[in-house]
């Protein structure tokens, strides 16, 4: 039994087959019953009609030889067995005396006949030693049962007809069963094939191959499941790719400073420097690269914290204009040095509900980028109110970003110029962290840029709701 129930296909097949067979058997017996009933009723009706017509020949009084002769003649011509009986013994006339004799009719039948009603017989009759369908017509003279006309058809004849019907039926049923089982099997296969495919695909995925795609056209539950499966596998694949990229990026970003530190420290150990000045320069380089690594690790830590669910902002009402002003204060010397003009127009009314340190980090990250990619020209900062939101715009006249890179600029470690090193000091995580933080403040960060013209970063943040 376990062999039969260890797969869904077999179970479905068993169910379908059982349903087909039960339906066929049920309909067979039902139609057989109806057929027999209709046929038997038909025979009974014709026997009754025949009997009534024959009984109408009886004119009362004792049964005459003439009547007997007529019945005998009719019997010889008819397919029905017909006979006339007047023997009171056969008619159970002696019944109260309990005569030891198998009479043709019984007590109840005699009573029915005495009322003038015909009696019907269906089934085995000991007298004829066979199954019959019969009708007994009373020949009543007033209230005397003078005789009966007994008409019957052996049931064998009826069952012969029903047997023909049964053979035909069984043959048709057999063909139908075979066809239905074949079709059912095909249907079951069609239904379960996508499931098998999905099982194989899931096994494939669990082995680490995410390149699977199920081609299932149906729109039903199985089709929906397959689509969900495809979506799931492609998500896993993307996530996996992201992870690989990230690891590759991290190791790549770390390799450069490490090789600097390694190379210069080796040079110092082996005494390759020619002067004290050169030694100082090497040490400066090692320090710079170490700081860079520190920054990088710090940013990575920040990012992983921001991505985890337990990261909590310490929100408070913040006058944003003051905050921005303080943040840009420290950039003024370097801007002056680079000869970049700084303009700002800040609406002092803007107050948001935010984490002071984090918002400052956002401004810094964006400012760092702007300063890094702006050789000359200007950086302008604007803070304004727009309905229930505040708008921070930081615009520069730097090198800008081409359209093809613009959409990926917020990804971690994304670099417009793959060949460029991090000599500019960025970690490649600033914008990603900034966007994460803005999102945590239910805000939005958008970057607009045009190559060689400049870049504009727009930050929308919800204003503090004053209740």
């Amino acid at each position, binding site marked *: 039994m376990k062999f039969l129930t260890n797969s869904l296909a077999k179970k479905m097949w068993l169910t379908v087959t059982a349903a087909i067979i039960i339906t066929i058997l049920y309909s067979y017996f039902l139609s057989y019953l109806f057929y027999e009933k209709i046929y038997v009723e038909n025979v009974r009706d014709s026997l009754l009609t025949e009997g009534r017509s024959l009984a109408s020949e009886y004119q009362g009084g*004792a049964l005459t030889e003439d009547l007997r002769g007529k019945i005998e003649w009719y019997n010889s011509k008819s397919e029905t067995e017909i006979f006339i009986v007047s*023997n*009171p*013994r*056969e008619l159970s*006339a*002696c019944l*109260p*005396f309990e*005569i*030891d*004799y198998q009479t043709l009719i019984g007590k109840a039948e005699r*009573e029915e006949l*005495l009322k003038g009603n015909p009696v019907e017989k269906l089934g085995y009759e000991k007298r004829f030693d066979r199954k019959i369908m019969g009708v007994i017509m009373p020949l009543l003279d*007033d*209230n*005397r*049962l003078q005789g009966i006309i007994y008409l019957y058809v052996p049931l064998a004849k009826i069952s012969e007809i029903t047997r023909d019907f049964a053979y035909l039926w069984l043959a048709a049923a057999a063909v139908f069963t075979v066809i239905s089982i074949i079709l059912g099997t095909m249907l079951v296969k069609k239904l379960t094939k996508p499931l098998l495919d999905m099982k194989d695909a899931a096994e494939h995925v669990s082995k680490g191959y995410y390149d699977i795609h199920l081609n299932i056209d149906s729109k039903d539950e199985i089709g929906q499941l397959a689509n969900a499966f495809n979506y799931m596998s492609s998500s896993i694949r993307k996530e996996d790719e992201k992870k690989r990229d990230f690891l590759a990026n991290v190791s790549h970003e770390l390799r450069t400073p490490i090789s600097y530190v390694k190379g210069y420290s080796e040079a110092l150990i082996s005494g390759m420097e020619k002067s004290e000045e050169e030694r100082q320069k090497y040490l400066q380089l090692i320090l710079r690269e170490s700081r860079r690594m520190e920054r990088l690790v710090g940013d990575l830590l920040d990012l992983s914290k921001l991505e985890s669910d337990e990261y909590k902002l310490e929100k408070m009402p913040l006058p944003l204009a003051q905050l921005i002003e303080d943040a840009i204060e420290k950039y003024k010397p370097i801007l002056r040095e680079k000869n970049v003009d700084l303009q700002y127009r800040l609406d002092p009314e803007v107050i948001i509900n935010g984490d002071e340190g984090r918002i400052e980090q956002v401004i810094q990250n964006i400012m760092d980028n702007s300063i890094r990619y702006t050789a000359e020209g200007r950086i302008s900062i604007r803070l304004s109110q727009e309905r229930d939101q505040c708008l921070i715009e930081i615009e520069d006249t730097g090198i800008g970003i081409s359209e093809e890179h613009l959409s990926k600029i917020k990804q971690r470690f994304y670099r417009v110029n793959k060949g460029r090193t991090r000599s500019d000091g960025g970690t490649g995580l600033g914008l990603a962290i900034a966007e994460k933080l803005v999102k945590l403040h239910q805000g939005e960060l958008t970057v607009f840029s045009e190559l060689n013209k400049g870049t504009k970063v727009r930050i929308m943040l919800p204003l503090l709701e004053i209740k």
Partner: protein
Amino acid sequence: MSKKMYWLFFLWIITAFLTSCSEKRQPAIPEDISFAATVNIKDMTISFVDLEKKELAADWAMEKPYTGALILPDNDSILLYGKQLETADLYSLKEGKLIDSWETGEGIVNGILLETNEIAFADQHLNKIRFFHLNGEEEKQVESEIDPLTLLESGEENKLFVLSFNHEKLGIIDLASKEKSGEFTIHPSAAGAWLNKRNGEIWIGGHGEGLDIEQNIHVYDEETGKLKKKIPAASMPINFLGQGNQVYVLSHGSNMLYKINESGEVAASVSIAANPFEMAFAADKLLVAGYDSNDLHVLEPENLKTLKSIKVGEGPFKIVIRESVK
């Protein structure tokens, strides 16, 4: 009403209710009417026909399948019996209620009141003739042939003739000693008998055996049991009613009533009722009950002319007569 009174009243109501349930009363039959009562086996009733008015006086619906009855000499007690019944039940006619039950056991198919004021029952379970006193006390059992049915008393000779229904035997019991005094072989399915005293003959009818229908009365020598002759009386003569030197013979197979003299000549005959089994004399009239026609025919015994037919219950099988002396 005090509490005690209330309870007494309540008890009285309960008693009245319970008695009405346990003791079913039948319509009373006044002492001063003469009647013929038919025991109707199809609908389990007893029909009382007033002989003077020639109309139905009362119907008793019974709860047991009685097949026969006897009126006891007190003219008020009717003893009812049946083959399937454990008891023979005695009812008072004027009170219409059960007054006694005799523990007879099953198998009683026929009973007659003997001239000695004893009752003889034919018991087909024990295959015995059982004699009872009128108080219900059983006096004696006498072995009979298997399936005793017809009982015929010869008062003069103090004999009881017992006809076995299926076993072709006639047994003779001496009523003085209540011992079996003889037997002889008769025809099968015998039913109904008449003692033709003048010729020393016993006339016996019957249903016939198997498919054969009895067409004749078999006449046997009373002493030797020799078959003397057959008298045609088609068909199935099963009841005899002697009156002087002639006998009325009822043939249920052909619904015929014959009036035959002692030499066997048919003096009169008539087609009567439907499947008649039983007849009786009452008030100089002949009564014939039609088992299938559910009626009682009153005939003039002389010319067999029907005077009246009265509807009774279904399947009248036995007639008993009470002629009021008042």
